[in-house]
């Protein structure tokens, strides 16, 4: 019997594609953001409000992933920006190859901001690098304050935590401070925004964060995933 050392990542194939995507995004000055949450936390709603707020000249595109249906792409396409649905047909996450394939339809020189809306799932998408500059995790106030402790990986890997549906805080037994403290326990440096896509409260903070990150990407700034 012989023991061979194997010094590679298990998902090395995905990692190679992700690094090549990251390099391309950097070269073309594209800010790529990967939005991740459980199903129904409000990823699509946040993107709708975001796209609605943009000047029509904004060079933004969206790739939206789901196991089935193109409902999200149809919702998002109403705002006049290019949108593609990625239907995974059963797979619980997006991977680098799916992104690469769908990007072939677009010219990266004509894009400043690329949103990837991942499949609704707090676990699996956290293992697949898509070449994004940042992962963004969403959690709604109708879920539980302990979700960052139950799903630490995605909170650990995300640069920004958007607490969504905060207009419902008066009606649900959810302590936002506890949720935020739990997120910081897992990831001390995580940035946090509270937002409501219904009342649009907090959206200005989210849009300011986006604007700042887009300016950084234009200057060839940190397009490197921190974790």
């Amino acid at each position, binding site marked *: 019997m012989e*023991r061979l050392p194997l010094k590679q990542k298990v998902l090395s194939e*995905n990692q190679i594609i992700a690094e090549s995507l990251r390099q391309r995004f950097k070269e073309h000055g594209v800010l790529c953001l990967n939005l991740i949450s459980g199903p129904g936390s409000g990823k699509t709603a946040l993107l709708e409000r975001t796209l609605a707020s943009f000047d029509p000249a904004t060079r933004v595109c969206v790739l939206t992933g789901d196991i089935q249906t193109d409902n999200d792409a149809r919702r998002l396409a109403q705002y006049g920006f290019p949108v593609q649905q990625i239907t995974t047909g059963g797979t619980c996450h997006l991977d680098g190859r799916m992104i690469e394939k769908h990007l072939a339809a677009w010219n990266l020189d004509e894009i400043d901001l690329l949103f990837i809306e991942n499949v609704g799932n707090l676990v699996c998408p956290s293992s697949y690098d898509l070449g994004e500059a940042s992962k963004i995790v969403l959690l709604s106030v109708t879920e539980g304050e302990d979700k960052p402790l139950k799903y630490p990986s995605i909170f650990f890997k995300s640069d920004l935590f958007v607490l969504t549906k905060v207009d419902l805080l008066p009606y649900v037994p959810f302590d936002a401070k506890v949720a935020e403290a739990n997120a910081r*326990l897992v990831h001390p440096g995580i940035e946090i925004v509270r937002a409501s896509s219904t009342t649009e409260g907090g959206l200005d903070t989210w849009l300011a964060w986006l604007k700042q990150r887009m300016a950084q990407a234009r200057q060839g700034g940190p397009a490197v995933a921190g974790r």
Partner: protein
Amino acid sequence: MHELSIAESILEAVRKELASRSGARPTRVGLRIGELAAVDVDSLTFCFEAVLRGTEWENLVLDARVCAQRRICNDCGSEFAVVEYNATCPVCSGGNTRMIGGDELDFDYLEVETDGTASLEAKGTE
């Protein structure tokens, strides 16, 4: 749920590794899985056995070792395992620490047997 894709990636990597070694049969593949890697070891083991079924490597064993989150103190240089998400340095009590491990999903080793008596003897002494 993505453990099945990961199991397939493992098998694919083993195939690639052995492509240049004719007659070698894999017996055990070692992985290091960080506690922040979002991979469930039981589920991965189950999926790995499922993807092996019907292949020539049905007895290939998956040895997945879970690795705790490890941090290093930027002030005093101490390395420590994180318990209950406490990122504070246990030596100098400083909060200026950074992660050095715990989200990995890496191969560690691959054990192979080569056809012939030598491998049979090796098997006997295991």
